[in-house]
């Protein structure tokens, strides 16, 4: 039936649930586009035939047109949903994506993410605040963190340097930890 392939795309997104992005389904998208192409060609044929005087073709044309509209709508929804989740990645993981997630995006989606990054950065520069930080209301100024990787030395805003090695515990200011937590270098305990 018309539109069935397209519906698979939406079901696939739905099955994956919130925040998890399936690979861009290039194959199915291509099949849907092909279905649209053949629908369009058949319509074109029938419309030409009708204009030459043949009767009773219009219901078919209308049905196919509705199928075309539906396929278009579903494809755009698929892209839009994905684009929203991709933009969300910027908030969860920062500017650098892990390779396994990166490989799930289509090339144009990667460039969408880059452009999104750029406009978000431009916005934050304009207002003068990094809004990807301070995500949770602060309960205390200092928090205890455990270092999970061998990261080496970092410089704190107070000017002190701190050596982060695996398994060590630190008592740091929240604002200083957040970028480290986001990058997975330390975890909150």
């Amino acid at each position, binding site marked *: 039936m018309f539109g069935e392939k397209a519906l698979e795309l939406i079901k696939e997104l739905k099955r994956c649930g919130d925040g998890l992005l399936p690979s861009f389904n290039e194959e199915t998208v291509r099949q849907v586009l092909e279905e649209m192409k053949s629908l369009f060609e058949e319509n074109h044929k029938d419309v030409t035939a009708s204009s030459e005087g043949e009767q009773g073709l219009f219901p078919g044309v209308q049905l196919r047109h509705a199928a075309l509209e539906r396929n278009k709508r579903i494809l*755009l929804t698929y892209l839009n949903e994905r684009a929203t989740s991709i933009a969300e990645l910027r908030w969860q993981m920062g500017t650098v994506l892990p390779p396994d997630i990166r490989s799930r995006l289509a090339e144009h989606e990667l460039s969408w993410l880059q452009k999104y990054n750029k406009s978000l950065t431009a916005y934050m520069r304009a207002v003068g*605040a990094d809004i990807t930080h301070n995500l949770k209301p602060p309960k205390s100024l200092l928090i205890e963190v455990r270092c999970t990787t061998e990261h080496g030395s970092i410089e704190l805003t107070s000017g002190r340097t701190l050596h982060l090695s695996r398994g060590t515990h630190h008592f740091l200011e929240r604002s200083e930890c957040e970028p480290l937590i986001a990058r997975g270098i330390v975890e909150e305990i």
Partner: protein
Amino acid sequence: MEDEEDNIFSGSDDEEAMTAGEVLQKLEEAWMNEALSPELLMNKSDIIDCMMEQINEMENNIQRVKTNDLKIYIHKMELERIRYLLTSYLRIRIKKIEKYATAIMMEDGKRDPDDAKLTDSELQFAREREKNLLELFQNLVLQHMPPNMQSLEKDKICSKPNLDEYVFFRVNQDVEGVLVEEETVDNREEVIDLKKGEQHIMRYKIIRPLAETGAVSLI
């Protein structure tokens, strides 16, 4: 030394009549309203700019005072709280703009540029987002579609905020004659008076203008 510490919360030198405390209160109010309303509200750039200045001032003051005093700890904590409030407010707005970029820009296009909901930088962000999204659509699917399917009526397909959502709110000043239900064939119209201090739950659409003027606060 004592003086410096006490000055941490005092305002900057400009002639602004509001005290730092009042600005903070306004920010809290704006933050609550923005977080709870389904649509984007008017920008409060004056409050935000003012608060940004205050934060910078406070930061400088704290840095000048170099002791491990408990007071510093408390001031720093307060600073973190305000910073959270500020970033959270901006974040909520940006998320709404992302969701409804096209709808908001069309709405703003109809009003006086001075009354625009978006600040300049927000407008820039919304424009770029819309453009990039259209580019993505174009590159991945639209250009491969049959010729009569390639156009996009963005005003028809863009998502719009649900103004019929129910919201809780508190009344800040008396308002008379609020139209709750339009007159229909089956029902007579329903009009109520809101009294200061009351709390209600209603559709957002009804109190939309009141939320904007501050006559009610969303809670």
